């Protein structure tokens, strides 16, 4: 039996065989459940870990691109239980580590303990909850740890003296936020990013990945110099807009082409980390 949970994530990043592991983000059910499943299967072929977003009405940490992806999924009827079923479908055919990305309110509504159990049952390996800072995370951490699920914390350029505490608590990987602000494509990174990532590495016993703004193969090569993994969200989700348009058009060939374009783009970024 293949290992699961936090160890699966940590090993997948450390043993990716690349300079930096590739961790794409997509919203579950964007633009609809079936196409989303197809996208996830494509990504599973060359990704080291995949983040699956639970669409939410008020995604505070996200910029316009991921907000739009979230809206497309919600309009197509995606819910948290359906997202967990989608994860289970992927798990049935792939061993790629899967991380659930969700805001805290759906967690509270579902019940912290019940959701951790449901995540484990679906075959997810960990969670990222961007609006659950360390100070509020004790109950969730305990419930996740009990099931060997990773609780992956975000660490920011403004974390300063908090870095030690957060990095030491990280399981799965430590998620370094590349710059101030919400998710979204950016032209370049903060000058102090490398020193920041190095500081997190010193404080942490798990791999350290960088996200927010990573949007090109050039970025991936640049970050591969010092990050164990890169997270790419908006640049991929933006390509779901065309998939949605293709879906609406009813043109099957156009739909295939748009899904293939997303995969090709993601594969190029993954390869850039070699």
């Amino acid at each position: 039996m293949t290992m699961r949970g936090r160890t699966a994530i940590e090993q997948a990043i450390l043993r990716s065989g690349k300079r930096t592991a590739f961790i794409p983000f997509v919203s579950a059910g964007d633009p609809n459940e079936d196409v989303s499943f197809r996208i996830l299967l494509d990504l599973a072929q060359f990704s080291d870990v995949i983040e699956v977003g639970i669409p939410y009405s008020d995604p505070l940490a996200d910029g316009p691109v991921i907000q739009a992806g979230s809206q497309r999924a919600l309009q197509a009827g995606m819910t948290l239980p359906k997202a967990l079923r989608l994860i289970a479908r992927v798990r049935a055919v792939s061993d790629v580590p899967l991380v659930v990305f969700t805001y805290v309110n759906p967690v509270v509504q579902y019940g912290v303990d019940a959701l951790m159990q449901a995540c484990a049952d679906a075959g997810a390996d960990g969670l990222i909850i961007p609006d659950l800072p360390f100070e509020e995370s004790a109950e969730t951490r305990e419930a996740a740890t009990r099931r060997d699920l990773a609780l992956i914390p975000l660490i920011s350029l403004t974390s300063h003296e908090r870095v030690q505490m957060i990095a030491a608590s990280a399981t799965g990987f430590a998620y370094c936020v590349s710059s101030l602000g919400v998710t979204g494509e950016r032209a370049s990174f903060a000058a102090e990013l490398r020193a920041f990532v190095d500081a997190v590495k010193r404080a942490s016993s798990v791999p350290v990945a960088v996200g927010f703004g990573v949007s090109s193969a050039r970025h991936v090569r640049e970050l591969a110099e010092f990050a164990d993994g890169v997270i790419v969200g908006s640049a991929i989700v933006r390509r779901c807009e065309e998939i949605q348009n293709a879906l609406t058009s009813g043109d099957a060939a156009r739909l295939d082409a748009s899904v293939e374009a997303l995969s090709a783009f993601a594969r190029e970024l993954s390869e850039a980390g070699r």
Partner: protein
Amino acid sequence: MFPDERGRFGEFGGKYVPETLMSALTALEADYRRLAGDPEFSRLLRSYLRDYSGRPTPLYFASRLTKFAGGAKIYLKREDLNHTGAHKINNTLGQGLLAKMTGKERVIAETGAGQHGVATATVAALFGLQCTVFMGEEDMARQALNVFRMRLLGAEVVPARSGTKTLKDATNEAMRHWVEHVQETYYIVGSVVGPHPYPMMVRDFQRVIGDETREQIIAQEGRLPDVLVACVGGGSNAMGLFYPFLHDGAVRLIGVEAAGEGIETTRHAATIAKGSRGVLHGSMTLLLQDEFGQVQPAHSISAGLDYPGIGPEHAHLAASGRASYEPVTDQEALDAFATLAKVEGIIPALESAHAIAHAVKLAKTLPGDAVIVVNLSGRGDKDVHTAQGLLGGNLQ
């Protein structure tokens, strides 16, 4: 005393924000605690409240409204007589001064109807700070005059185009903007909502309403009131009135929620009556949401109450039973709006009209020597246009 060191009011409150903001919130709390104990800060704030905003505001015995209701005596705490026309300035003067004295050069704010936006733009002008206000695109259309006011005061008004394009989304946009500009920007939150320390800080800046009321009612009636009534959106005017009376068990505290078209419909903003526990805008509170935790749109005739959440301290006061919360519909509020204009010559804000409506209902059930204080949190000039559309044919 609440909040505790984690910013909790019982099980509500806390700090649920992206990590990027955590250091800023810790620094803000430290700055606030330091300045709150600084005599120079207190002296300056008191002088601005008096000389700039016109405090203390009167506590007015509304004899004709009392007669109209036919029961308990009704007093009105005249927050509508503040500069900019509502209680919002108590908080923006406090936070604006805090921003100024901690060396910030730029403030941002969210606004629904535009009252908090105007109050923020006003103190930004007063203290020479740059100001950006986030406002839902829908609300900008509904409250065009306040948009112009803010611009006249030198503020930049940015439309929030996400989600429902109202106050909830303006707050999201303000927080997103703050995450990006946290190092040089002070966020003036407009109500007793948001992550700790905001609910505490805004309450403390608004408690001047209750402190004055206490002195004034003792001077006029020789005793404490039997009931305090205030409308609740996020809940800052109610919290400000209630707070100095929390330990006076004999004083009933009643918050009035917007029932919109009725709490049995889906079009209301009655968070306490119909909401459930969850996290909105950085704190654990009660909110309107579906079974999966998706935040549901609120509705009220009054843009200031049109909010799917409520301050965490109100959620706590409701849970503990110290305060009760009553729903008042759009129609009842509109009737009270017209009544107060006719019998007292005071045009209340539609928000405050909700409190008036409940006070009149309640007064009828109480004896003539009972005393009710209603917070008249704002004036109604901003709502005359809306009311004209709705009441037009009925005013003969």
